[in-house]
Protein backbone atom coordinates (compact mmCIF):
# COMPACT_ATOMS: atom_id res chain seq x y z
CA UNK A 1 0.00 0.00 0.00
CA UNK A 2 1.33 3.44 -0.92
CA UNK A 3 0.02 6.40 1.05
CA UNK A 4 0.40 8.79 -1.88
CA UNK A 5 -1.71 6.69 -4.26
CA UNK A 6 -4.29 6.15 -1.50
CA UNK A 7 -4.62 9.87 -0.84
CA UNK A 8 -4.71 10.71 -4.53
CA UNK A 9 -7.49 8.18 -5.07
CA UNK A 10 -9.47 9.54 -2.14
CA UNK A 11 -9.13 13.05 -3.45
CA UNK A 12 -10.38 12.15 -6.92
CA UNK A 13 -13.47 10.58 -5.38
CA UNK A 14 -14.38 13.29 -2.85
CA UNK A 15 -17.09 14.86 -4.96
CA UNK A 16 -18.65 11.54 -5.88
CA UNK A 17 -18.74 10.45 -2.23
CA UNK A 18 -20.39 13.68 -1.14
CA UNK A 19 -23.05 13.46 -3.85
CA UNK A 20 -23.85 9.81 -3.17
CA UNK A 21 -23.93 10.33 0.58
CA UNK A 22 -26.21 13.35 0.33
CA UNK A 23 -28.55 11.58 -2.09
CA UNK A 24 -28.86 8.49 0.08
CA UNK A 25 -29.28 10.64 3.20
CA UNK A 26 -32.03 12.64 1.50
CA UNK A 27 -33.74 9.42 0.40
CA UNK A 28 -33.77 7.97 3.92
CA UNK A 29 -34.79 11.22 5.53
CA UNK A 30 -37.61 11.95 3.11
CA UNK A 31 -39.16 8.49 3.19
CA UNK A 32 -38.83 8.23 6.96
CA UNK A 33 -40.57 11.54 7.37
CA UNK A 34 -43.79 10.21 5.85
CA UNK A 35 -43.85 7.23 8.21
CA UNK A 36 -45.72 8.77 11.16
CA UNK A 37 -48.56 9.95 8.98
CA UNK A 38 -48.49 6.68 7.15
CA UNK A 39 -48.49 4.42 10.21
CA UNK A 40 -51.74 5.84 11.53
CA UNK A 41 -53.48 4.51 8.46
CA UNK A 42 -51.36 1.41 8.19
CA UNK A 43 -54.31 -0.91 8.60
CA UNK A 44 -55.90 0.64 5.55
CA UNK A 45 -52.65 0.43 3.63
CA UNK A 46 -52.23 -3.24 4.45
CA UNK A 47 -55.80 -3.82 3.36
CA UNK A 48 -55.16 -2.03 0.12
CA UNK A 49 -51.97 -3.97 -0.45
CA UNK A 50 -53.75 -7.28 0.04
CA UNK A 51 -55.90 -6.38 -2.97
CA UNK A 52 -52.89 -6.03 -5.26
CA UNK A 53 -52.04 -9.10 -7.33
CA UNK A 54 -49.68 -11.23 -5.19
CA UNK A 55 -47.25 -11.52 -8.07
CA UNK A 56 -46.84 -7.76 -8.16
CA UNK A 57 -46.18 -7.54 -4.43
CA UNK A 58 -43.75 -10.39 -4.72
CA UNK A 59 -41.97 -8.63 -7.54
CA UNK A 60 -41.26 -5.70 -5.29
CA UNK A 61 -40.52 -7.89 -2.31
CA UNK A 62 -43.40 -6.34 -0.44
CA UNK A 63 -45.42 -9.47 0.23
CA UNK A 64 -43.58 -10.22 3.44
CA UNK A 65 -43.07 -6.64 4.52
CA UNK A 66 -45.25 -5.27 7.20
CA UNK A 67 -45.36 -1.61 6.39
CA UNK A 68 -47.21 -0.81 9.59
CA UNK A 69 -44.18 -1.37 11.81
CA UNK A 70 -41.30 1.07 11.94
CA UNK A 71 -38.72 -1.44 10.75
CA UNK A 72 -41.09 -2.98 8.23
CA UNK A 73 -41.42 0.42 6.70
CA UNK A 74 -37.71 1.10 7.05
CA UNK A 75 -36.88 -2.17 5.28
CA UNK A 76 -38.69 -0.82 2.22
CA UNK A 77 -36.49 2.28 2.32
CA UNK A 78 -33.48 0.09 2.94
CA UNK A 79 -34.10 -1.77 -0.34
CA UNK A 80 -33.80 1.52 -2.21
CA UNK A 81 -30.72 2.43 -0.21
CA UNK A 82 -29.21 -0.92 -1.18
CA UNK A 83 -29.81 -0.21 -4.87
CA UNK A 84 -28.01 3.13 -4.54
CA UNK A 85 -25.14 1.60 -2.61
CA UNK A 86 -24.84 -1.21 -5.16
CA UNK A 87 -24.54 1.28 -8.02
CA UNK A 88 -22.05 3.43 -6.12
CA UNK A 89 -19.88 0.45 -5.17
CA UNK A 90 -20.20 -0.90 -8.70
CA UNK A 91 -19.06 2.44 -10.08
CA UNK A 92 -15.95 2.41 -7.95
CA UNK A 93 -15.27 -1.25 -8.74
CA UNK A 94 -15.65 -0.95 -12.50
CA UNK A 95 -13.71 2.30 -12.56
CA UNK A 96 -10.95 1.31 -10.16
CA UNK A 97 -8.39 0.55 -12.84
CA UNK A 98 -10.34 1.04 -16.07
CA UNK A 99 -10.71 4.82 -15.70
CA UNK A 100 -6.94 5.27 -15.61
CA UNK A 101 -6.54 3.01 -18.61
CA UNK A 102 -9.17 4.91 -20.58
CA UNK A 103 -7.78 8.29 -19.69
CA UNK A 104 -4.31 6.86 -20.28
CA UNK A 105 -2.96 8.01 -16.95
CA UNK A 106 -2.11 4.39 -16.16
CA UNK A 107 1.18 4.94 -18.01
CA UNK A 108 2.09 7.68 -15.58
CA UNK A 109 1.20 5.66 -12.51
CA UNK A 110 2.69 2.33 -13.53
CA UNK A 111 6.00 3.74 -14.73
CA UNK A 112 6.57 4.86 -11.14
CA UNK A 113 8.48 2.61 -8.74
CA UNK A 114 5.43 0.86 -7.34
CA UNK A 115 4.34 -2.72 -7.84
CA UNK A 116 0.98 -3.61 -9.33
CA UNK A 117 0.02 -5.19 -6.01
CA UNK A 118 0.73 -1.93 -4.18
CA UNK A 119 -1.26 0.02 -6.75
CA UNK A 120 -4.29 -2.24 -6.54
CA UNK A 121 -4.21 -2.47 -2.74
CA UNK A 122 -3.99 1.30 -2.37
CA UNK A 123 -6.82 1.80 -4.83
CA UNK A 124 -9.01 -0.80 -3.14
CA UNK A 125 -8.45 0.65 0.31
CA UNK A 126 -9.19 4.15 -0.97
CA UNK A 127 -12.42 2.95 -2.59
CA UNK A 128 -13.37 1.10 0.57
CA UNK A 129 -12.73 4.25 2.60
CA UNK A 130 -14.97 6.22 0.25
CA UNK A 131 -17.71 3.61 0.54
CA UNK A 132 -17.34 3.56 4.32
CA UNK A 133 -17.96 7.30 4.46
CA UNK A 134 -21.26 6.81 2.64
CA UNK A 135 -21.95 3.83 4.89
CA UNK A 136 -21.38 5.95 8.00
CA UNK A 137 -23.78 8.57 6.63
CA UNK A 138 -26.43 5.87 6.12
CA UNK A 139 -25.97 4.74 9.75
CA UNK A 140 -26.21 8.24 11.15
CA UNK A 141 -29.16 9.34 9.04
CA UNK A 142 -31.06 6.09 9.63
CA UNK A 143 -30.76 6.33 13.40
CA UNK A 144 -31.49 10.04 13.33
CA UNK A 145 -34.48 9.83 11.01
CA UNK A 146 -36.07 6.91 12.86
CA UNK A 147 -35.56 8.65 16.19
CA UNK A 148 -37.32 11.73 14.86
CA UNK A 149 -40.09 10.15 12.85
CA UNK A 150 -41.00 6.90 14.64
CA UNK A 151 -43.87 8.71 16.33
CA UNK A 152 -45.48 6.65 19.04
CA UNK A 153 -44.50 3.36 17.48
CA UNK A 154 -41.70 1.32 19.06
CA UNK A 155 -38.94 -0.45 17.18
CA UNK A 156 -36.07 -2.64 18.23
CA UNK A 157 -32.61 -1.48 17.35
CA UNK A 158 -31.24 -5.03 17.10
CA UNK A 159 -32.64 -5.65 13.62
CA UNK A 160 -31.65 -2.14 12.57
CA UNK A 161 -28.07 -2.90 13.56
CA UNK A 162 -28.26 -6.12 11.55
CA UNK A 163 -29.41 -4.27 8.44
CA UNK A 164 -26.89 -1.47 8.71
CA UNK A 165 -24.12 -3.92 9.60
CA UNK A 166 -24.69 -5.80 6.37
CA UNK A 167 -23.89 -2.74 4.26
CA UNK A 168 -20.12 -3.15 4.28
CA UNK A 169 -20.27 -6.76 3.02
CA UNK A 170 -22.84 -5.66 0.47
CA UNK A 171 -20.60 -2.83 -0.80
CA UNK A 172 -17.54 -5.06 -0.94
CA UNK A 173 -19.41 -7.51 -3.14
CA UNK A 174 -20.21 -4.89 -5.79
CA UNK A 175 -16.77 -3.30 -5.52
CA UNK A 176 -14.89 -6.54 -6.07
CA UNK A 177 -17.26 -8.07 -8.63
CA UNK A 178 -17.17 -4.80 -10.58
CA UNK A 179 -13.40 -4.84 -10.45
CA UNK A 180 -13.03 -8.43 -11.62
CA UNK A 181 -15.47 -7.92 -14.50
CA UNK A 182 -13.62 -4.78 -15.58
CA UNK A 183 -10.42 -6.83 -15.71
CA UNK A 184 -12.03 -9.72 -17.54
CA UNK A 185 -13.57 -7.71 -20.36
CA UNK A 186 -11.15 -6.24 -22.83
CA UNK A 187 -12.00 -2.65 -22.15
CA UNK A 188 -14.53 -0.72 -20.10
CA UNK A 189 -15.21 2.44 -22.06
CA UNK A 190 -17.83 3.83 -19.74
CA UNK A 191 -18.34 2.74 -16.15
CA UNK A 192 -21.99 3.71 -15.59
CA UNK A 193 -23.75 1.23 -17.91
CA UNK A 194 -21.82 -1.58 -16.27
CA UNK A 195 -22.57 -0.55 -12.70
CA UNK A 196 -26.22 0.15 -13.46
CA UNK A 197 -26.47 -3.21 -15.18
CA UNK A 198 -24.89 -5.07 -12.30
CA UNK A 199 -26.83 -3.18 -9.61
CA UNK A 200 -30.27 -3.37 -11.19
CA UNK A 201 -29.62 -6.82 -12.60
CA UNK A 202 -28.93 -8.17 -9.14
CA UNK A 203 -31.93 -6.34 -7.74
CA UNK A 204 -34.23 -7.72 -10.40
CA UNK A 205 -32.91 -11.23 -9.82
CA UNK A 206 -33.92 -10.93 -6.19
CA UNK A 207 -37.19 -9.13 -6.79
CA UNK A 208 -38.49 -11.47 -9.42
CA UNK A 209 -37.08 -14.64 -7.97
CA UNK A 210 -40.33 -15.29 -6.15
CA UNK A 211 -42.25 -15.15 -9.38
CA UNK A 212 -40.25 -17.82 -11.14
CA UNK A 213 -40.32 -20.17 -8.19
CA UNK A 214 -37.11 -21.02 -6.41
CA UNK A 215 -34.10 -21.05 -8.65
CA UNK A 216 -30.37 -21.19 -8.17
CA UNK A 217 -30.12 -17.77 -9.77
CA UNK A 218 -31.63 -15.96 -6.83
CA UNK A 219 -28.92 -17.31 -4.57
CA UNK A 220 -26.25 -15.27 -6.34
CA UNK A 221 -27.70 -11.87 -5.63
CA UNK A 222 -26.60 -9.86 -2.60
CA UNK A 223 -30.09 -8.39 -2.38
CA UNK A 224 -31.21 -11.88 -1.38
CA UNK A 225 -28.13 -12.56 0.77
CA UNK A 226 -28.82 -9.44 2.77
CA UNK A 227 -32.59 -9.29 2.63
CA UNK A 228 -33.81 -6.88 5.33
CA UNK A 229 -37.13 -8.69 5.68
CA UNK A 230 -35.31 -11.90 6.55
CA UNK A 231 -33.28 -10.06 9.16
CA UNK A 232 -36.40 -8.60 10.79
CA UNK A 233 -38.27 -11.89 10.77
CA UNK A 234 -35.41 -14.01 12.06
CA UNK A 235 -33.39 -11.51 14.05
CA UNK A 236 -30.25 -12.80 12.37
CA UNK A 237 -28.45 -13.01 9.03
CA UNK A 238 -29.08 -15.83 6.60
CA UNK A 239 -25.63 -17.15 7.50
CA UNK A 240 -25.04 -19.61 4.61
CA UNK A 241 -25.98 -16.96 2.05
CA UNK A 242 -23.85 -14.29 3.72
CA UNK A 243 -20.92 -16.70 3.72
CA UNK A 244 -21.56 -17.42 0.04
CA UNK A 245 -21.56 -13.68 -0.60
CA UNK A 246 -18.28 -13.18 1.25
CA UNK A 247 -16.69 -16.06 -0.67
CA UNK A 248 -17.69 -14.57 -4.01
CA UNK A 249 -16.11 -11.28 -2.91
CA UNK A 250 -12.95 -13.01 -1.80
CA UNK A 251 -12.62 -15.05 -5.01
CA UNK A 252 -13.28 -11.94 -7.11
CA UNK A 253 -10.49 -10.12 -5.26
CA UNK A 254 -8.00 -12.96 -5.66
CA UNK A 255 -8.72 -13.23 -9.39
CA UNK A 256 -8.49 -9.44 -9.72
CA UNK A 257 -4.99 -9.37 -8.23
CA UNK A 258 -3.94 -12.28 -10.41
CA UNK A 259 -5.24 -10.58 -13.56
CA UNK A 260 -3.98 -7.11 -12.73
CA UNK A 261 -0.43 -8.22 -12.03
CA UNK A 262 -0.33 -9.87 -15.46
CA UNK A 263 -2.24 -7.17 -17.29
CA UNK A 264 -0.83 -5.42 -20.35
CA UNK A 265 -1.33 -1.67 -20.21
CA UNK A 266 -1.94 -0.65 -23.79
CA UNK A 267 -0.87 2.61 -25.31
CA UNK A 268 -3.07 4.87 -27.36
CA UNK A 269 -4.56 2.90 -30.20
Amino acid at each position, binding site marked *: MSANIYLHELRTRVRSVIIWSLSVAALIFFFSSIYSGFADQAVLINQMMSKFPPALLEAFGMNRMNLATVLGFYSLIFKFVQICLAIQAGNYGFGLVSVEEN*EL*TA*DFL*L*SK*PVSRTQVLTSKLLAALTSLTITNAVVWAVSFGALAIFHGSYPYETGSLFLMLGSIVIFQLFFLSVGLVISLLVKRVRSVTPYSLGLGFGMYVLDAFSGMFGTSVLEDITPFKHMDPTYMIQNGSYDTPLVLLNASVTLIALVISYWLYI*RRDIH*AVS
Partner: protein
Amino acid sequence: MSVIEVTNLTKYYGKSRGIVDVSFSEEEGEIFGFIGPNGAGKSTTIRLLLSLIHPTSGSAKVFGKDVVTHGTEIRRDIGYLPSEVFYYEGMKVIDLLKYSASFYECDCTKRLHELSDLMELELNRRISDLSYGNKKKVGIVQGLLHSPKLLFLDEPTAGLDPLMQRKFFDLIRQENARGVTVFFSSHILGEVQRLCTRVGIIREGKIVEISDIRALQQNNYKKVNVTADKLNPKTFDLPGVTNVQMENGTLHFFFKGDINMMLKKISSFQVADVTIEEPTLEEIFMHYYE
Protein backbone atom coordinates in the same frame (compact mmCIF):
# COMPACT_ATOMS: atom_id res chain seq x y z
CA MET B 1 28.39 -2.13 -17.89
CA SER B 2 25.25 -2.67 -19.95
CA VAL B 3 22.37 -0.64 -18.64
CA ILE B 4 19.89 -2.23 -21.00
CA GLU B 5 20.25 -5.79 -22.21
CA VAL B 6 17.54 -7.16 -24.42
CA THR B 7 17.65 -10.79 -25.52
CA ASN B 8 15.33 -12.25 -28.15
CA LEU B 9 12.49 -10.16 -26.84
CA THR B 10 9.18 -10.94 -28.53
CA LYS B 11 5.75 -9.49 -27.95
CA TYR B 12 2.53 -10.43 -29.66
CA TYR B 13 -0.77 -8.75 -28.85
CA GLY B 14 -2.96 -11.75 -29.42
CA LYS B 15 -2.12 -12.49 -33.04
CA SER B 16 -0.89 -9.06 -34.02
CA ARG B 17 2.80 -8.40 -33.93
CA GLY B 18 4.44 -6.09 -31.48
CA ILE B 19 8.13 -6.94 -31.79
CA VAL B 20 9.85 -10.14 -32.85
CA ASP B 21 13.15 -11.48 -31.57
CA VAL B 22 14.64 -8.12 -30.68
CA SER B 23 18.13 -8.14 -29.17
CA PHE B 24 20.40 -5.22 -28.38
CA SER B 25 22.21 -3.66 -25.49
CA GLU B 26 23.00 -0.17 -24.36
CA GLU B 27 26.06 0.80 -22.38
CA GLU B 28 26.12 3.18 -19.45
CA GLY B 29 26.33 6.83 -20.47
CA GLU B 30 25.27 6.21 -24.04
CA ILE B 31 22.57 7.98 -25.97
CA PHE B 32 21.01 5.24 -28.01
CA GLY B 33 18.75 6.19 -30.88
CA PHE B 34 15.91 3.87 -31.71
CA ILE B 35 14.46 4.67 -35.09
CA GLY B 36 11.70 3.26 -37.16
CA PRO B 37 8.42 4.32 -38.70
CA ASN B 38 5.13 4.41 -36.84
CA GLY B 39 4.01 0.96 -35.78
CA ALA B 40 7.47 -0.58 -36.07
CA GLY B 41 7.56 -1.51 -32.38
CA LYS B 42 9.45 1.35 -30.76
CA SER B 43 6.87 2.05 -28.10
CA THR B 44 6.29 -1.65 -27.57
CA THR B 45 9.98 -2.08 -26.74
CA ILE B 46 9.95 0.79 -24.26
CA ARG B 47 6.73 -0.41 -22.65
CA LEU B 48 8.25 -3.85 -22.23
CA LEU B 49 11.32 -2.35 -20.56
CA LEU B 50 9.05 -0.43 -18.17
CA SER B 51 7.00 -3.61 -17.55
CA LEU B 52 3.83 -1.84 -18.62
CA ILE B 53 3.34 -4.88 -20.84
CA HIS B 54 4.73 -8.39 -20.46
CA PRO B 55 6.90 -10.20 -22.99
CA THR B 56 5.56 -13.16 -24.95
CA SER B 57 9.05 -14.63 -24.93
CA GLY B 58 12.64 -13.57 -24.48
CA SER B 59 13.95 -11.42 -21.69
CA ALA B 60 15.14 -7.94 -20.91
CA LYS B 61 17.39 -6.63 -18.18
CA VAL B 62 17.78 -3.07 -16.98
CA PHE B 63 20.61 -2.26 -14.55
CA GLY B 64 21.35 -6.00 -14.69
CA LYS B 65 17.94 -6.91 -13.25
CA ASP B 66 15.13 -8.70 -15.01
CA VAL B 67 12.31 -6.30 -15.92
CA VAL B 68 9.54 -8.77 -15.18
CA THR B 69 10.66 -9.75 -11.69
CA HIS B 70 12.41 -6.57 -10.52
CA GLY B 71 10.33 -3.91 -12.27
CA THR B 72 9.56 -1.91 -9.15
CA GLU B 73 13.21 -1.59 -8.14
CA ILE B 74 14.30 -0.74 -11.67
CA ARG B 75 11.73 2.01 -12.07
CA ARG B 76 13.23 3.93 -9.13
CA ASP B 77 16.02 5.11 -11.42
CA ILE B 78 14.06 5.48 -14.62
CA GLY B 79 12.55 8.59 -16.14
CA TYR B 80 9.94 8.10 -18.83
CA LEU B 81 8.53 10.56 -21.30
CA PRO B 82 5.78 8.88 -23.30
CA SER B 83 5.02 9.84 -26.88
CA GLU B 84 1.49 10.87 -25.97
CA VAL B 85 1.21 12.57 -22.61
CA PHE B 86 -1.91 12.14 -20.52
CA TYR B 87 -2.27 13.35 -16.97
CA TYR B 88 -5.05 13.69 -14.44
CA GLU B 89 -7.05 16.44 -16.11
CA GLY B 90 -8.46 17.98 -12.96
CA MET B 91 -5.10 18.50 -11.27
CA LYS B 92 -2.93 21.58 -11.26
CA VAL B 93 0.48 21.23 -12.82
CA ILE B 94 2.24 21.74 -9.51
CA ASP B 95 0.09 19.11 -7.79
CA LEU B 96 0.75 16.61 -10.52
CA LEU B 97 4.49 17.21 -10.31
CA LYS B 98 4.42 16.89 -6.52
CA TYR B 99 2.42 13.69 -6.84
CA SER B 100 5.00 12.42 -9.30
CA ALA B 101 7.84 13.38 -6.93
CA SER B 102 6.14 11.63 -4.01
CA PHE B 103 6.96 8.28 -5.58
CA TYR B 104 10.68 8.82 -5.18
CA GLU B 105 12.81 8.95 -2.10
CA CYS B 106 14.63 12.13 -3.08
CA ASP B 107 13.58 15.62 -2.15
CA CYS B 108 12.92 16.77 -5.67
CA THR B 109 11.42 20.21 -4.98
CA LYS B 110 14.48 22.16 -6.04
CA ARG B 111 14.95 20.21 -9.24
CA LEU B 112 11.23 20.50 -9.94
CA HIS B 113 11.41 24.29 -9.89
CA GLU B 114 14.67 24.42 -11.85
CA LEU B 115 13.20 22.32 -14.62
CA SER B 116 9.88 24.16 -14.68
CA ASP B 117 11.68 27.49 -14.96
CA LEU B 118 13.83 26.16 -17.75
CA MET B 119 10.87 24.80 -19.69
CA GLU B 120 8.83 27.93 -18.90
CA LEU B 121 6.07 25.89 -17.38
CA GLU B 122 3.23 27.65 -15.54
CA LEU B 123 2.77 25.67 -12.37
CA ASN B 124 -0.63 26.96 -11.33
CA ARG B 125 -2.58 26.07 -14.42
CA ARG B 126 -4.87 23.10 -14.66
CA ILE B 127 -3.73 20.19 -16.79
CA SER B 128 -7.00 20.32 -18.72
CA ASP B 129 -6.26 23.90 -19.78
CA LEU B 130 -2.84 23.10 -21.23
CA SER B 131 -2.05 22.85 -24.91
CA TYR B 132 -0.42 19.71 -26.21
CA GLY B 133 3.03 21.30 -26.21
CA ASN B 134 2.60 22.45 -22.62
CA LYS B 135 1.49 18.99 -21.54
CA LYS B 136 4.63 17.70 -23.16
CA LYS B 137 6.64 20.09 -21.00
CA VAL B 138 4.91 18.70 -17.92
CA GLY B 139 5.98 15.30 -19.19
CA ILE B 140 9.58 16.40 -19.50
CA VAL B 141 9.68 17.86 -15.99
CA GLN B 142 8.00 14.86 -14.39
CA GLY B 143 10.34 12.53 -16.25
CA LEU B 144 13.46 14.31 -15.04
CA LEU B 145 12.65 15.70 -11.61
CA HIS B 146 13.90 12.69 -9.66
CA SER B 147 17.29 12.72 -11.43
CA PRO B 148 16.95 9.27 -13.00
CA LYS B 149 19.93 7.23 -14.17
CA LEU B 150 18.17 6.04 -17.30
CA LEU B 151 15.84 8.06 -19.48
CA PHE B 152 13.30 6.66 -21.90
CA LEU B 153 12.25 9.27 -24.42
CA ASP B 154 9.52 8.13 -26.77
CA GLU B 155 9.26 10.63 -29.63
CA PRO B 156 9.88 13.44 -27.17
CA THR B 157 9.91 16.49 -29.40
CA ALA B 158 6.46 16.19 -30.95
CA GLY B 159 4.46 19.28 -30.02
CA LEU B 160 7.43 21.36 -28.88
CA ASP B 161 8.33 24.51 -30.78
CA PRO B 162 11.87 24.68 -32.23
CA LEU B 163 13.12 26.88 -29.40
CA MET B 164 11.85 24.44 -26.79
CA GLN B 165 13.23 21.54 -28.78
CA ARG B 166 16.66 23.11 -28.59
CA LYS B 167 16.34 23.71 -24.85
CA PHE B 168 15.19 20.15 -24.47
CA PHE B 169 18.15 18.76 -26.40
CA ASP B 170 20.54 20.89 -24.33
CA LEU B 171 18.90 19.51 -21.23
CA ILE B 172 19.31 15.94 -22.43
CA ARG B 173 22.96 16.61 -23.26
CA GLN B 174 23.52 18.02 -19.77
CA GLU B 175 21.88 15.00 -18.20
CA ASN B 176 23.98 12.76 -20.37
CA ALA B 177 27.12 14.61 -19.32
CA ARG B 178 26.19 13.79 -15.70
CA GLY B 179 26.32 10.14 -16.72
CA VAL B 180 22.65 9.56 -17.49
CA THR B 181 21.98 6.88 -20.07
CA VAL B 182 19.39 7.85 -22.66
CA PHE B 183 17.19 5.64 -24.79
CA PHE B 184 15.82 7.87 -27.49
CA SER B 185 13.07 6.65 -29.76
CA SER B 186 12.11 8.71 -32.75
CA HIS B 187 11.16 8.70 -36.38
CA ILE B 188 12.73 12.09 -36.95
CA LEU B 189 16.21 11.24 -38.08
CA GLY B 190 17.67 14.69 -37.86
CA GLU B 191 17.27 14.79 -34.11
CA VAL B 192 18.65 11.31 -33.65
CA GLN B 193 21.64 12.31 -35.74
CA ARG B 194 22.21 15.39 -33.58
CA LEU B 195 22.02 13.60 -30.28
CA CYS B 196 22.83 9.93 -30.48
CA THR B 197 26.06 8.00 -30.51
CA ARG B 198 24.59 4.70 -31.60
CA VAL B 199 21.40 3.76 -33.36
CA GLY B 200 19.19 0.76 -33.77
CA ILE B 201 16.83 0.65 -36.70
CA ILE B 202 13.61 -1.26 -36.24
CA ARG B 203 11.23 -2.20 -39.00
CA GLU B 204 8.08 -4.26 -38.80
CA GLY B 205 8.98 -5.42 -35.32
CA LYS B 206 12.49 -6.59 -36.19
CA ILE B 207 15.85 -4.94 -35.68
CA VAL B 208 17.40 -4.43 -39.12
CA GLU B 209 20.61 -2.70 -38.08
CA ILE B 210 22.46 -1.66 -34.97
CA SER B 211 25.42 0.52 -35.56
CA ASP B 212 27.58 3.37 -34.47
CA ILE B 213 26.11 6.46 -36.02
CA ARG B 214 29.46 7.43 -37.57
CA ALA B 215 30.02 3.94 -38.89
CA LEU B 216 26.56 3.85 -40.30
CA GLN B 217 27.32 6.95 -42.30
CA GLN B 218 30.89 6.04 -43.24
CA ASN B 219 30.76 2.37 -44.10
CA ASN B 220 27.68 2.86 -45.99
CA TYR B 221 26.67 4.37 -49.21
CA LYS B 222 28.41 7.43 -50.54
CA LYS B 223 26.31 9.98 -52.20
CA VAL B 224 27.98 10.92 -55.48
CA ASN B 225 27.09 13.89 -57.68
CA VAL B 226 28.92 14.28 -60.96
CA THR B 227 28.49 17.08 -63.46
CA ALA B 228 30.16 16.44 -66.82
CA ASP B 229 29.49 16.39 -70.55
CA LYS B 230 28.13 13.35 -72.30
CA LEU B 231 26.61 11.81 -69.21
CA ASN B 232 23.62 9.58 -69.34
CA PRO B 233 21.96 7.46 -66.65
CA LYS B 234 23.77 4.37 -67.94
CA THR B 235 27.23 5.90 -67.67
CA PHE B 236 27.94 4.59 -64.20
CA ASP B 237 26.34 1.23 -64.62
CA LEU B 238 28.76 -0.42 -62.21
CA PRO B 239 28.22 -2.93 -59.40
CA GLY B 240 27.38 -1.02 -56.21
CA VAL B 241 25.66 1.87 -57.91
CA THR B 242 22.03 2.50 -57.01
CA ASN B 243 19.38 5.20 -57.12
CA VAL B 244 20.69 6.81 -60.30
CA GLN B 245 19.04 10.11 -61.10
CA MET B 246 19.80 12.51 -63.91
CA GLU B 247 19.04 16.16 -63.38
CA ASN B 248 20.21 19.20 -65.42
CA GLY B 249 23.33 17.46 -66.65
CA THR B 250 24.21 16.27 -63.16
CA LEU B 251 24.13 12.62 -62.26
CA HIS B 252 23.19 11.71 -58.66
CA PHE B 253 23.62 8.22 -57.31
CA PHE B 254 24.54 6.15 -54.28
CA PHE B 255 27.68 4.06 -54.39
CA LYS B 256 28.89 1.31 -52.14
CA GLY B 257 32.17 -0.41 -53.00
CA ASP B 258 35.79 0.39 -53.81
CA ILE B 259 36.00 4.14 -53.94
CA ASN B 260 39.21 4.04 -56.07
CA MET B 261 37.40 2.29 -58.84
CA MET B 262 34.75 4.96 -58.76
CA LEU B 263 37.36 7.75 -58.83
CA LYS B 264 39.05 6.22 -61.89
CA LYS B 265 35.74 5.98 -63.63
CA ILE B 266 34.89 9.59 -62.84
CA SER B 267 38.30 10.87 -63.94
CA SER B 268 37.79 9.37 -67.37
CA PHE B 269 35.34 12.17 -68.02
CA GLN B 270 35.81 15.88 -68.44
CA VAL B 271 34.32 16.70 -65.05
CA ALA B 272 32.84 20.12 -64.36
CA ASP B 273 31.95 19.39 -60.76
CA VAL B 274 32.02 16.45 -58.41
CA THR B 275 31.00 15.87 -54.83
CA ILE B 276 31.22 12.66 -52.86
CA GLU B 277 29.50 12.93 -49.51
CA GLU B 278 28.21 10.88 -46.66
CA PRO B 279 24.52 10.36 -46.94
CA THR B 280 22.30 11.80 -44.22
CA LEU B 281 20.74 9.35 -41.87
CA GLU B 282 17.51 10.08 -43.63
CA GLU B 283 18.84 8.71 -46.87
CA ILE B 284 20.33 5.64 -45.23
CA PHE B 285 17.10 5.12 -43.42
CA MET B 286 14.99 5.34 -46.54
CA HIS B 287 17.28 2.78 -48.04
CA TYR B 288 16.39 0.29 -45.31
CA TYR B 289 12.78 0.74 -46.10
CA GLU B 290 12.94 -0.02 -49.76
